[in-house]
């Protein structure tokens, strides 16, 4: 247990101590800021972040910070669509035309034809052509880094052909039911300008392009602006954008590593939007008339990973006992203030084939104790739950789990570990229990292949080091199945196996959570986690 106060706690305690005297002033201050709200700097969106992009070469990136920039700079042929729910626009995992004006698939699911949108230009002024599409797809395959990992199982350099200057045909080596969804991912599907790439070092197998890691030339609504490391970076409007001029002239990202500071800046209206404030701060914002909390379930699971190769978690009875012992609803209330969707499967609820009715568990300490004694741990055991220090959501989860586990005789120590060490430790399978939440593409094949396939053990995503030949077989079958009914059946079967094995303790769907000023309009959440600043605007 961390005895030390975090800075944030300090701030909160101070605020409480100073509370009575300051309350009046505080309220007045907030009202004042609200009253003056004739939308300051209406053409610039100020975004508070604590990270910086790592690499701007779309065919090389694997981190979200870079992805969120490139979401607005490069565009794929297809993109995730939105739908209207109760008068609100929400993102979906369904794809529709984007740089492609339309597309069709052959009956056997192997050949796809895309007709390109007319009049699309790269930021440098060159037109989008079928050659550029072919070049980009082949470049992604040649670079062969993260974005190519799944799609390269279904296509090669010969797959893409130019039919005419506005038409491209892709012939897959075998049918791929999620090909279009993969192509809609900003990194996998990004269309780059061949002239620009060739002028700056071209494409090398297995390597990103040095120039492109710092410079961009896409077709998107924003161009990459200036980047002052450690301080700020920005996206600047592309006035030539094919779908119209962006309403925002600039999206200015400010590096503010302290969440308490982000929180204050948002309340004062100097920041327009922040991502994933700690839940305790978010709840303080609920009811604030100037601030909107947008949240949704992402494709990912907030979960307590168990190291399946390590004693005692190599015993499935112990793993089941863990699931019975931990109360996900209590954790949702404490760590996510009830904002999250509690797990009813080993799969996140947004994935194709998700079947909550198969979930056999509910919070039941007695059953947990029975299972433990059956496994020979009637007296319990001692273990450690790790989380990355500074993440209050994961810390809360660990602390609550600790209390639940104590009820069934398991003595778990809670340990906060610096991010870098934490990542190395879970990739190497060194921690018995740890709390982690991920965000993945909205493709069930991708999810199960990364998280549950035995060959993905370790850095590729199977951090539980889960291995079950039966699950592997089902995953292999899923990757080769096109028929929707057969796919659903396979996913269902797989969930039965995973539910029985419980490689980890699922708590709730990863929470996408943004807090923004009410004057930010048009901000849409996608389950895939992408950030699109077109057509966002600021108005009263």
């Amino acid at each position, binding site marked *: 247990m961390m005895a030390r106060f975090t800075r944030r706690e300090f701030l909160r305690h101070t605020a409480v101590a100073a509370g009575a005297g300051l309350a009046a002033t505080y309220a007045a201050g907030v009202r004042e800021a609200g009253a003056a709200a004739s939308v300051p700097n209406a053409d610039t969106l100020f975004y508070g972040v604590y990270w910086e992009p790592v690499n701007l070469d779309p065919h090389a990136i694997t981190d979200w910070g870079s992805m969120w920039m490139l979401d607005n700079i490069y565009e794929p042929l297809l993109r995730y669509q939105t739908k209207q729910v109760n008068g609100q626009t929400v993102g979906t995992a369904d794809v529709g035309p984007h740089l492609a004006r339309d597309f069709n698939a052959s009956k056997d699911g192997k050949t796809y034809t895309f007709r390109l949108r007319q009049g699309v230009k790269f930021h440098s002024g060159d037109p989008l052509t079928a050659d550029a599409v072919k070049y980009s797809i082949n470049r992604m395959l040649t670079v062969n880094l993260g974005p190519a990992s799944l799609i390269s199982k279904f296509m090669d350099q010969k797959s893409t052909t130019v039919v005419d200057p506005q038409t491209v045909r892709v012939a897959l080596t075998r049918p791929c039911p999620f090909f279009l969804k993969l192509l809609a991912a900003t990194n996998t599907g990004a269309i780059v300008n061949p002239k620009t790439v060739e002028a700056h070092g071209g494409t090398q197998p297995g390597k990103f392009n040095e120039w492109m890691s710092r410079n961009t030339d896409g077709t998107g609504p924003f161009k990459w602006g200036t980047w002052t490391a450690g301080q700020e970076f920005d996206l600047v409007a592309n006035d030539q954008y094919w779908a119209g001029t962006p309403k925002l002239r600039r999206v200015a990202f400010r590096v503010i590593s302290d969440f308490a*500071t982000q929180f204050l800046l948002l309340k004062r209206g100097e920041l327009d939007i922040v991502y994933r404030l700690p839940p305790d701060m978010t709840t303080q914002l609920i009811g604030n008339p100037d601030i909107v909390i947008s949240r949704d379930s992402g494709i990912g699971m907030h979960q307590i990973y168990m190291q399946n190769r390590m004693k005692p978690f190599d015993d499935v009875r112990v793993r089941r006992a863990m699931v019975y012992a931990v109360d996900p609803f209590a954790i949702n209330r404490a760590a996510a203030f009830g904002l999250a969707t509690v797990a009813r499967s080993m799969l996140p609820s947004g994935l194709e084939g998700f079947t909550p009715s198969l979930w056999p568990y509910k919070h039941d300490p007695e059953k947990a104790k029975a299972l433990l004694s059956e496994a020979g741990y009637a007296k319990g055991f001692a273990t450690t739950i790790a989380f990355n220090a500074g993440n209050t959501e994961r810390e809360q989860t660990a602390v609550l789990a600790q209390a639940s586990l104590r009820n069934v005789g398991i003595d778990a120590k809670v340990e906060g570990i610096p991010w870098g060490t934490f990542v190395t430790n879970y990739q190497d399978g060194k921690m018995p229990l740890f709390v982690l939440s991920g965000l993945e593409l909205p493709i069930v094949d991708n999810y199960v292949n990364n998280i549950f396939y035995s060959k993905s053990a370790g850095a590729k995503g199977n951090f539980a080091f889960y291995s079950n030949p039966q699950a592997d077989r089902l995953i292999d079958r899923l990757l080769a199945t096109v028929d929707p009914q057969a796919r659903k059946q396979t996913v269902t079967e797989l969930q039965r196996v995973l539910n029985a094995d419980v490689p980890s303790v699922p708590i709730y769907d990863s929470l996408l959570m943004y807090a923004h000023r009410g004057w930010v309009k048009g901000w849409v959440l996608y389950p895939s986690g992408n950030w699109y600043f077109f057509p966002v605007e600021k108005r009263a």
Partner: protein
Amino acid sequence: MYLGEGEQDPGVVAALRHQWGLDRPLPVQYVDYLRNALSGNLGFSIHSGRPVADDLRHYMPATVELSLLSFVIAVVLGIPLGVLSGARVNTATDHASRVGSLLFLSMPSFWFGLIVIYVGYFVLGWLPSPTGRLGMTDTAPPPVTGLYLMDSLLAGDPGAFVRALWYLLPPAFTLALPSLGLVVRMLRSSIVEVLGQDYIRTARSKGAAARSVLYRHALRNALIPTVTVLGVQFGLLFSGNVLVETVFSWPGIGAYLVQAISWLDYSAVMGCTLLIAVLFVAVNVLVDLSYAALDPRVTYG
């Protein structure tokens, strides 16, 4: 976040290990590091993707500006307060300054920083936003030295100078407080001690004005221990502002170091540590040299 990794080709891994020199014995690696460091090559930062030396050059000016100003604040406020306190022992002024300096000395500076931000910026709205070197909509002066105060003057833009100073003051003041407290306490006790010396009585008896006794005779002699402490403090200002930089989103070496640590970016961490150590030693050499200016008995052969 895990978007999936490419297959790890053992050949690529081996090539990388060779490229980074990780396949050689540790002592060889160490000597290599030292040799490279002496020629200004501190290795490559994995989290910024740039040479560490470039990164340090980039982040250094913000830290230098902050540390210098807080040093100036500590000296300019600390010395008069210390003298005042020492010259008026056991008066209300003395008590106030003693309590104040003890408070400054014992308060963690990041905590004070949070109070400054919460009350000064958030509640009262008097102080600038804790958004680093400038506000949301300000643009930096054209870079020459990287010090915004200097660059804005070089660009002939007094408005930018005032803005940069405005954003610099809260973190600089926060950072200065512990040093300020220490200077006041040190100087006070030295002054009290020196004022009891024979030569002060002599100076007084020969009819020197009280002011002259205090400043020409007492202060100069009392200053030596304070200068020693100031030297150490100056070094600490560079190394100890990691937390203050984080709280004020100040893009300096401290912020860079925190990032580097959380990424396990060893080259960057070593680069920062080395830089801070070198600065610390350099400042202390300067302090030692300054004794000669204060005390004619000290000469360097």
